[in-house]
């Protein structure tokens, strides 16, 4: 059956060569991809999603958070890696005409509550203290795993916060606030404890840009829904439910994220373009100066999804054991050269040799003089001047 093939005789050879090349190229591609895995500093994803407002009329903040939660779960981050903090229960709120649902589109098109929501911090547990403890990891030993942020230095963390805020602060539960300074210090603590590789901070509140102004730790990228002095507006009220369902910025972010799938190559620059002023009324802002990579090269799925691409290959991949990570950490250890020691909590030496308290205030001389002059004058007026000679 050696039928003579029509065409040039070199075709099979060429095809074989091409295929070999392709094969080797493919192998190289796989090797490259496998090496890529070791070059990036990021191996797991976490998300901390916080809604800080309570009461029925703040439905939209819960809907915001839940829609981000939904996207993040859809893109692959499991519940065990999401810390969801909701300050109030909208789905089972007595004022909810559609119980067990939280909608994000009017006409109730999209129920972001679903039947697979795991809220970790609920209602009054959403406090500034708990939030900071989650971030910094300083949690009492009795806290269950679901309430902990067990990130390490290879975790990319997405932190999303929404609620009512102002210039430099975010209001929690209508009773306390977290300031931008506190937040920046918390992130610095996270950095020093090697609790993140890269951090994406998104905030949807009024004057949200003020919250990322004070960050000073490396590898943080921040997005906010409005600049200082601007209010973030809500999107659409639903006349059936009676409240505004979503905030504009998160609404358009959600629309954007609906297009993303786990293998998307969309990068951060596209996220920065989400919700321009014409749609959002406020001007969204972002901050990338602390971030080491170019936002062009940062995939959305680096933060919103969990890297879980599986490719089966029959190739053998030879990995170089001396692979060095492409991104090196910013060496900030030069600061920690001086030995640390505890400050004296109880200055025993001082207490033992305690001197009597120094009175720092003394009445002015004029006052004392005036007062005693008056008293002496009255005395002599009353008892007669003749007593003078007994005194002087």
């Amino acid at each position: 059956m050696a039928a003579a093939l029509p065409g040039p005789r070199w075709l099979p050879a060429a095809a074989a060569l091409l295929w070999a090349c392709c094969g080797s190229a493919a192998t190289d591609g796989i090797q490259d991809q496998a090496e890529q895995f070791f070059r990036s500093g990021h191996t797991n994803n976490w998300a901390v999603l916080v809604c800080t407002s309570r009461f029925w009329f703040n439905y939209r903040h819960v809907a915001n958070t839940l829609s981000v939660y939904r996207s993040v779960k859809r893109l692959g981050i499991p519940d065990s890696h999401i810390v969801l903090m909701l300050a109030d229960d909208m789905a089972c709120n007595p004022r909810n005409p559609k119980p067990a649902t939280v909608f994000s589109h009017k006409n109730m098109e999209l129920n972001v509550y679903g039947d697979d929501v795991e809220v970790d911090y609920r209602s009054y547990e959403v406090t500034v203290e708990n939030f900071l403890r989650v971030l910094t990891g300083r949690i009492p030993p009795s806290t269950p795993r679901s309430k902990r942020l067990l990130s390490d230095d290879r975790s990319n963390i997405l932190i999303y916060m929404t609620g009512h805020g102002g210039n430099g602060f975010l209001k929690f539960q209508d009773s306390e606030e977290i300031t931008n300074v506190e937040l920046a210090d918390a992130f610095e603590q996270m950095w020093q404890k090697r609790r993140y590789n890269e951090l994406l901070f998104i905030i949807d509140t009024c004057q949200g840009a003020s919250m990322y102004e004070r960050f000073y730790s490396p590898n943080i990228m921040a997005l906010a829904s409005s600049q200082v002095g601007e209010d973030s507006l809500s999107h659409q009220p639903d006349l059936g439910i009676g409240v505004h369902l979503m905030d504009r910025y998160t609404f358009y972010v959600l629309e954007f994220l609906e297009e993303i799938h786990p293998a998307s190559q969309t990068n951060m620059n596209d996220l920065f373009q989400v919700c321009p002023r014409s749609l959002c009324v406020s001007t969204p802002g972002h901050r990338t100066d602390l971030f080491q990579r170019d936002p062009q090269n940062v995939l959305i799925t680096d933060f919103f999804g969990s890297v879980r691409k599986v490719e089966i290959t029959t190739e053998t991949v030879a990995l170089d054991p001396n692979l060095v990570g492409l991104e090196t950490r910013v060496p900030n250890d030069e600061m920690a050269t001086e030995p640390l020691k505890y400050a004296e909590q109880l200055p025993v030496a001082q207490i033992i040799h305690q001197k009597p308290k120094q009175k720092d205030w003394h009445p002015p001389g004029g006052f004392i003089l005036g007062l005693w002059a008056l008293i002496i004058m009255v005395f002599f007026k009353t008892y007669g001047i003749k007593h003078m000679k007994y005194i002087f």
Partner: protein
Amino acid sequence: MAAPLVLGILVAVTVRAVLYRSSLAGFISERVEVASPLNAWKRVVEGLALLDLGVSPYSGDVFHETPLIIYLFHFLIEYSELVFMITDVLTAVALYLAVQDFNKVVFKKQKLLIELDRYASDVAELIRTPMEMHYIPLKVALFYLLNPYTVMSCVAKSTCAINNTVIAFFILATIKGSTLLSAIFLSIATYQSLYPLTLFAPALLYLLQRQFIPVKLKSKDFWLYTTQYAALYLCSLVVIVCLSFFLLNSWDFIPSVYGFILSVPDLTPNIGLFWYFFAEMFEHFSLFFVCVFQINVFFYTIPLAVKLKEHPIFFLFIQLAIISIFKSYPTVGDVALYMAFLPLWSHLYRCKFFVFDSSHPHPHSPWGTLNSNTTDVYCVTYTLYISLLQILLISDYFYAFLRREYYLTHGLYLTRKDGTEAMLVLK
């Protein structure tokens, strides 16, 4: 008379010293009946501490004492217990001397009226004798020293004791007849807490009586003396206020002290009448009612002056009582001061409506836990009850006094025109 007084003083000082060392001291200083925002000791300490830190003690709503108290306690704060014991002793001694003098005056006046035949014929049992009047000064001094209210006030180190001392010295100066000293002490008393301003009228009346100047509106002497006294009083008040300015180089103390007394911003419960009313009032009306309540304190002066112009010391007593009941932040220290005068009028017992002993024990528990509405109501009723008792006491004494005067001039056994026995009715 000196020996029993000294003995009484020693006993009183011992009682106070013992209580200072016991655990009751802390408990008593926390009680709202004893320590009001105006005179609590811990506020004095707080104010002086703020001053040491370089902050004006009048910033914030902590310290409401006058600068003279700052000056006094700046040097004496370590000896505070001694200071308060000494002030109590001084008050008692001043009251003793004052009442001694006053009794002499009363007796002289009575003798004069008997000789002038102004009394009715059958009032022998109402005439006061030196025998009964002999122990009154001692009783007054002991009433003040050993009164549980005074002891509690002293143990709590409430500066009400200092206010009482100044008022006692004022009374002493008035009874001795010294215009200058009386004006000066009255101005210090007014400077400390605003209300002794109303004591100007009885003091003036007494001094006029002493100078034998009749109170006639046309009389030139009367106006001359009144203006003299008023001028002395106002000048010394101005001098003291200006001097206080120089202590801290600021006028902060005026809104802190007098603004506080007059506008009553602090509504923690006390034995006064202001707090419950204002705690429940809408902001809109509070200014009006503050004015009404404050006028209430000053209002009784003129009618009483008209009625009691012959008896200025009784007028003084009633006025002191009215101040203690109706002032914005009364404490038991104020009550103790006017209660000290009760022995002075124990001769009125015959004419009293009911024998009334107001130093009865009363429960303190409701104010321990002020966290429920029922306790609130209990507090209110209790406060009102105490005020009511005091008012009844005062009106009782007043009525008895007037009745006695009436009996003295018209005879004890009143008969109507047709000869049947008549009843005296207060209209």
